[in-house]
């Protein structure tokens, strides 16, 4: 793991050339002149410990709260609150505490959101059986392709009309069209966006995803949707995979299955979008910009340099797990892959805690109303289009 002090003189962990906004040397409350000094590794290690402690607290609350409220009027609500909620809330509380004590910027090197979420996504690949997707999720693939294309292009177009920077447009479009924070991270790596642009996009994703976990299942009931259609709607609409899982589970098991298939399909297409963005930014947006002479004459090798490598790990994990499951009994395979899923949840919790710890209200205020307008408008388009596609493609579908 790179020490933030090193990154302060070389890069951010989003691939941004170091300026004033690097992990461990952030602007803002920096009266001690921290920006000019390397942060000792001990602070980074302490930051990692902070994330681990909050993650453990998340795991504890996830299990203890439903047990505590069993048999009470709050039983359903307590059971409905999933680990992303606890992780983000604890991260935000930790953020406020550390900011008040002046420790946040010193510990920030340990808030490795990208590493945690990318590792979790690689492990997510192990839960995806390609043959199952191919046979049972044909409608999901069609829905994902149509939905991602339409919502991405709408968001990209509206962002352009409102004059947003190209890289922020790419991040917002990927986040709202595909799978939230992880897609924004993939897009950030592909287009080499600024760190604050990624933080801002991630903040928007969380702000919109959290209420969606509860609103969409409620609306599915109001509309009288079947579990399968509700699942397809949730999976195609909510941005983050964890939030999709939480919302699908609120509706029921069949809804959860369909929602997961749809979301996994979107996850699988994330690499395709990353490649397309890499190509677009390498050959068009940055063409002619004065910078590295090699970059002003883009080569095919740039595609490889900017490709998010963890996507390869994601695919490799799926291939390995699919092969493994063909060599053992179904029960044994389910139990073993369940261990990988537990590890994946831990990495997602670490990532969500880190997002809460890194959250900066200032980044939302500084960006102004236009990105919020783009994201909100694209979310509305996503909700309506996803509902239409879910009704069209999944009305006769049975997850049983």
């Amino acid at each position: 793991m790179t020490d933030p002090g090193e990154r302060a003189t070389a890069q951010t962990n989003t691939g941004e050339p170091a300026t004033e906004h690097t992990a461990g040397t952030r602007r803002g409350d920096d009266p001690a002149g921290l920006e000019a000094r390397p942060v000792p590794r001990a602070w980074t290690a302490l930051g990692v410990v902070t994330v681990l402690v909050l993650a453990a607290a998340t795991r504890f609350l996830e299990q203890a709260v439903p047990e505590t409220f069993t048999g009470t009027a709050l039983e359903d609500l307590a059971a409905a609150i999933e680990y992303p909620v606890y992780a983000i809330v604890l991260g935000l509380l930790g953020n406020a505490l550390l900011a008040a004590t002046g420790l946040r910027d010193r510990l920030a090197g340990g808030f490795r959101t990208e590493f945690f979420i990318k590792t979790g996504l690689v492990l997510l690949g192990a839960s995806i059986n390609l043959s199952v997707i191919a046979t049972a999720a044909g409608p999901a693939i069609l829905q994902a392709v149509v939905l991602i294309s339409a919502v991405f292009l709408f968001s990209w177009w509206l962002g352009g009309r409102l004059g947003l920077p190209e890289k922020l447009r790419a991040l917002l479009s990927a986040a709202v069209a595909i799978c939230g924070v992880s897609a924004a991270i993939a897009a950030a790596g592909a287009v080499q966006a600024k760190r604050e642009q990624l933080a801002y996009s991630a903040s928007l994703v969380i702000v919109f995803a959290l209420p969606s976990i509860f609103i969409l299942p409620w609306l599915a009931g109001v509309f009288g949707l079947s579990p399968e259609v509700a699942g397809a709607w949730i999976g195609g609409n909510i941005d983050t995979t964890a939030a999709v899982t939480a919302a699908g589970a609120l509706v029921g098991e069949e809804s959860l299955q369909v929602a997961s298939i749809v979301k996994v399909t979107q996850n699988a297409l994330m690499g395709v979008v990353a490649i397309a963005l890499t190509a677009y930014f390498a050959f068009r947006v940055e063409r002619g910009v004065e910078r590295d002479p090699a970059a002003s004459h883009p080569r095919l090798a740039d595609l490889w340099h900017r490709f998010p490598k963890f996507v390869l790990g994601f695919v490799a994990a799926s291939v390995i797990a699919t092969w493994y499951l063909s060599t053992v009994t179904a029960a044994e395979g389910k139990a073993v892959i369940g261990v990988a899923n537990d590890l994946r949840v831990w990495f997602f919790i670490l990532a969500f805690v880190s997002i809460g710890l890194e959250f900066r209200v200032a980044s939302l205020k500084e960006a102004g109303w236009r990105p919020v307008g783009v994201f909100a408008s694209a979310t509305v388009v996503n909700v309506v289009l996803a509902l239409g596609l879910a009704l069209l493609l999944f009305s006769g579908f049975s997850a049983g």
Partner: protein
Amino acid sequence: MGESESARRERGTRKRAIGEDWAATIVGLLLLILVLLGVIPQGVIP
């Protein structure tokens, strides 16, 4: 800052970004293999 310095930073940026991607890939796949081999057994992950 001169152009050569900018170019040097750009190369350093890409190298380190690739390093973090590969780190996540290696850690994720290593954990998966350890699970499949039974080194990380069921019930160990809280």
